[in-house]
């Protein structure tokens, strides 16, 4: 699909504006942001119309809307959440290597935490932390974008840390 007239594009907007707005609103839960994202979605659709598979306008637009909402939520979420790995430890303040060594029992506890993580973090963390796959390999194996996998690794790390701290405070590790 490569050529589209103004009338066709206007019809597309008229047909799917409510769907796109609903997807955006359900995800961002803010009317003004959802309206902005709806316009951004159609602007992107107009610019990249060539890549729309014929007959699949509806899911294609829904995907762009979800993508725009994702970017919006990511920037909003990262503004008030510091993910592990984002904070940098000055080299001189890093703990000595002997303190970083993990005992067998601790390793077993960490493995158990990872195995019990909820999706969408479990498979990603098993591949990345336990099977030592790179983010790119993990993304390839799971069919997810590398950027998403990296984000999920960071959030997975945060969840592992939280559960580890909980276990430590309970004295179960």
């Amino acid at each position, binding site marked *: 699909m*490569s*050529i*589209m*007239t*103004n*009338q066709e594009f*206007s019809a597309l*907007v*008229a047909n799917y*504006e*409510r*769907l796109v*707005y*609903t*997807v955006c*609103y*359900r*995800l*961002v*839960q803010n*009317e003004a942001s*959802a*309206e902005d994202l*709806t*316009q951004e979605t*159609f*602007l992107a659709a*107009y*610019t990249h*119309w*060539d890549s729309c598979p014929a007959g699949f306008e*509806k*899911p294609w637009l*829904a*995907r762009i809307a*979800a*993508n725009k*909402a*994702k970017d919006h*939520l*990511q920037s*909003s*979420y990262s503004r008030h959440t510091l993910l592990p790995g984002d904070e940098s430890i000055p080299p001189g303040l890093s703990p000595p290597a002997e303190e970083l060594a993990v005992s067998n029992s601790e390793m077993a506890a960490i493995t158990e935490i990872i195995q019990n993580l*909820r*999706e*969408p973090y479990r*498979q990603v963390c098993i591949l990345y932390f336990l099977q030592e796959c790179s983010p790119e390999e993990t993304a390839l194996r*799971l*069919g*997810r*974008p590398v950027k*998403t996998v990296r*984000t*999920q690794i960071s*959030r997975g790390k945060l969840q592992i840390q939280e559960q580890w701290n909980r276990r430590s405070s309970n004295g179960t590790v």
Partner: protein
Amino acid sequence: MELFNPHGHLTDDALKSFSVGGPLTELERLEIAEHLDFCDECLMRSIEFLPEDALLTPACSCRDTLWKRIRQRAVRVLTSRYATAAAAIAIAAGLWSFNIFGGLVAGSAALSNTARYSQRQSDFSEKIEQLDRAVSDGLSRLNQLFDFGGGPAVSQTNPLQSQGGLSS
């Protein structure tokens, strides 16, 4: 509520909650958006969970301002292209008028034909200036073509033809 099943796909409960605006945290909504961004299967299922009567209507339709933004973007892209081309032509003309290119062939037989060479140089400079004027005229005509003062929201011209390069 479990958002994802053990295979990593969205559960029916998650999609139902998404479609009716159920209580989802910001992180859960972000996880759903990230998943819908790459998973075809869940994207199609999510659309099934959004029938016509479940769709919301925006208070302010984007149709009113969408074409204006498309035209603005097209003009910005074209202006940028022509500005780059005009700058390149101006630099080339400047170098030519300072005889920079002449210096490159100074040792050649061209030195013996100085008069003829100067004539060709001035002819070329004139052509460059004509080309520059033509580009500027074309650009100003293009700017006049797009009416920002508030024409109809939907233009009668085909933007894919008149705003070349945008659709690719």
